[in-house]
């Protein structure tokens, strides 16, 4: 669906109105960040990538064919950049030193939880971040990810079960 505010802001931005792009940042940065957070699993990576996404959006705005569809376009840019980053990370992970660096960068208080979230597969992490961070319901997540409602519910369930298993690794009171 076309969005008139975006349409307007994109047109203004193409005319060189930098302030108009600030409107787009205000409106969409959160969604972009949530997607990056879900895909990357790390707040630092999400911050870096979401910023990169918004800057690319600014420099490439003329490539957007339908000005009213800024959000799907910028989310696609985000998805592609995250996939590139994940591919790079996979290569780098082969190096043992990387792991140490990654672990040293743990930013938030709940280390176990963050680590457990990062260990979830991406297809579980993305709906989880959308559910808890963006506070979207399953139906909206299904629409955004273009998957069925029941699949979203199933992924949320699996994510919870797997997180529980990861967080209670070594405990013996749970099966």
């Amino acid at each position: 669906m076309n969005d008139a505010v975006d349409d307007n802001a994109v047109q203004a931005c193409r005319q060189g109105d930098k302030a108009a792009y600030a409107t787009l940042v205000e409106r969409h940065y959160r969604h972009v960040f949530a997607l990056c957070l879900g895909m990357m699993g790390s707040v630092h990576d999400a911050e870096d990538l979401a910023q990169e996404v918004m800057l690319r959006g600014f420099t490439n705005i003329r490539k957007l064919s339908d000005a009213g569809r800024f959000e799907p376009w910028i989310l696609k840019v985000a998805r592609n950049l995250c996939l590139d980053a994940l591919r790079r990370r996979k290569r780098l992970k082969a190096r043992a030193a990387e792991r140490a660096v990654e672990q040293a960068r743990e930013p938030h208080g709940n280390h176990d939880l963050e680590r457990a979230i990062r260990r979830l597969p991406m297809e579980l992490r993305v709906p989880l971040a959308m559910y808890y961070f963006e506070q979207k319901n399953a139906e909206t997540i299904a629409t955004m990810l273009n998957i069925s409602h029941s699949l979203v519910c199933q992924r949320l369930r699996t994510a919870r079960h797997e997180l529980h298993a990861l967080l209670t690794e070594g405990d013996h009171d749970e099966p």
Partner: protein
Amino acid sequence: MNPDCRSIRDRISNAISDTLPEADERALREHLDGCADCRRYAQSLAQEHASLTEHFAQIDAEMAARRSHVLRALDDVWQSQQRNVFAIARRILSNPVTRIAAAILIVATVLALWQMEGGTTAAYALSDVPKLLKQARTIHLRRRHFPNGQVVHLEDWWDSESGGAYHYWEWPEYKQGPNGLQSMKASFETVKNGRFIMEVDHQNKTVRFERLLPVEQKLQKHLMAKDVASIAVPGVFQYLDRYTKIGTERIEAERYDVWRQEYRDVEADIGIRFDVWLSRRTGEIGRTRRWENWHKYGHGWQLASETDKIELDAEPPAGLFATEPPVGYTMENTKDTADITGAGFRTCRYPEGCEMRVPFSLALEEGSVLICWNVVCTPSLAPAEAVYDNLTFGGPLPQPPAALCGLMSISGGNRGRYGSVAFWDENAAFTITHYVGRYLMQTRKADRVYVWALYTPQEMLSSEEPTKETIAVIEPHVTDPNATRIVTPPLTSWVVTRARFAEYLTEAMPELSEDLTLPDFMAYNSLLQLAGQVRNTPGLYEDFRARMRPVEEGMSSDPRPAEASTAESIPPEMASGQVKEVVHGLFAAMHEGRTGDAMEMLKNDRRMASRVAGVMSRSTRLGNIRIEDTYVQDNAALAVTSTFKIAEGQSRCAVISLRRDRGTWSIQHFTWTTAENHDQEIGRFLRDFPKATHFSEEQER
């Protein structure tokens, strides 16, 4: 773990995200009662759910800083793009050959532009705009408003020669349908051809006419010219000096200067910013934008409306100002039966069942205002004939269910809702002038009773302006206990000279009276004499001021409610009970789908009112909401509800702040928040009202 446990654990997860069907809840409870493993699992999952919520909320807390960081990075990119341009320029200038070539090119371009301009260098500034707008034969505006993410389309045409005006607006509206609230398009047209006003409601396919007297037609033309110009460039006549030039920008092939003014609406606590794009070369206004910053929501500046087409002297489409009703539409009346209305006063529907019109008004040069008003009520409220009996020239006004009991004028700035001044001026003194109303005569025409009255200010107030703006005070005289408020629509009248007075009045009489003769006492001198007597009658102004005090308290310059002064404090227990009643009333309205009632209760929180409209169609459990906590201090209160489901997988509690004014509690802000975050809302309230008394449902049990 028995074989059932695996499927039960999926249900536990569903229950946590509120997606478990009610039918399965019982089976789950029964299993948990008998299975210690699953009970422990459920507890762990619930704890992890809480940890996840907190974890992501912590990440969320830094979003504003992250966004700012991105905006700063954007600035850097922008600057570096600009620097690249300068770097290229430096490279060109560093080489003698390219330097000479560039100089030749610049000179050639300047000469070419000069030729294109006819050898002149036109330079328009914003100060030229009022003149350009005044000289325009036609003005065409195309606007969009963006309330709550929705888009309202508006289009206006104004023809200064014929007095024709066309206004179209279209917006998405919510209506109660068989499956809850449904979004639909509502569109309206208002066409004015000078004499008639045709209102077309395209949604309900209805047409209604109103008619203007000759003097009001002239007033309409004058007011429309001002209104349309003010829409084209906000504050163009009074507040042009508040604009400053902030830069230039290119839109398509044209370069525009960008002018900005910014002020704060004290009452609503919002920042308002207007940007105007003006071509220095042609004087064309390329675009205007209005931005709002709702400080209390912390969303930053957001685009509220935009006018993207401002055409002067364009040819309107043929037949645009024709007042011919569309085929197939229901006619509520015809041009022959149309009510007479005034150009300077919008029909006021108050109290319920009554319509107040002002078909004719004139201001005398010494400040008094002559008004002819007419009230039409539903049959159950129709006033007894005796209301209009035994009235005398110069005596008190009659008391039909709605009476225009007096006027006020305000200098120094006021709130938008009082109409007469559009901008809040924080530095100006706020003074109110009262106009006492006295009866002159009554006329009758086609079952309508027209009351003629003179409204006189205590001091003589001469004005250089051709029109006079006041605020009409409507006083209800009905038995409904809720109709105690006095509402105040704006009223504009021509200031008329002694020479033209009789002419205008004589012209109006055939339309408003069966008896065409004008009584002798309606002469200019008689009215001046009466005004003098009114000014010298002891007690008249004191009485009127006392009656107006509640209205004026609502206009006080302090945006915070005048808590201590408007009503005596009541015991906190009683206040808590009253607050709960109001909040329960709101949720009952939402639960029962009474959209209008809910919107009315949320009228102080327009954004939330709109959001509530959206949620009402989805919420099935609003009827069971409990108010778990109330905090009360003097005439301020905060209510916190139990958690409830607003959508699948989303639970929230509501935190509602209320204020008590003249003994009545009204909702100021309504916030939905997660149960985990509601402490922040309560903390904010307690910072403002540290002595608040806390009542909790648990204590009461």
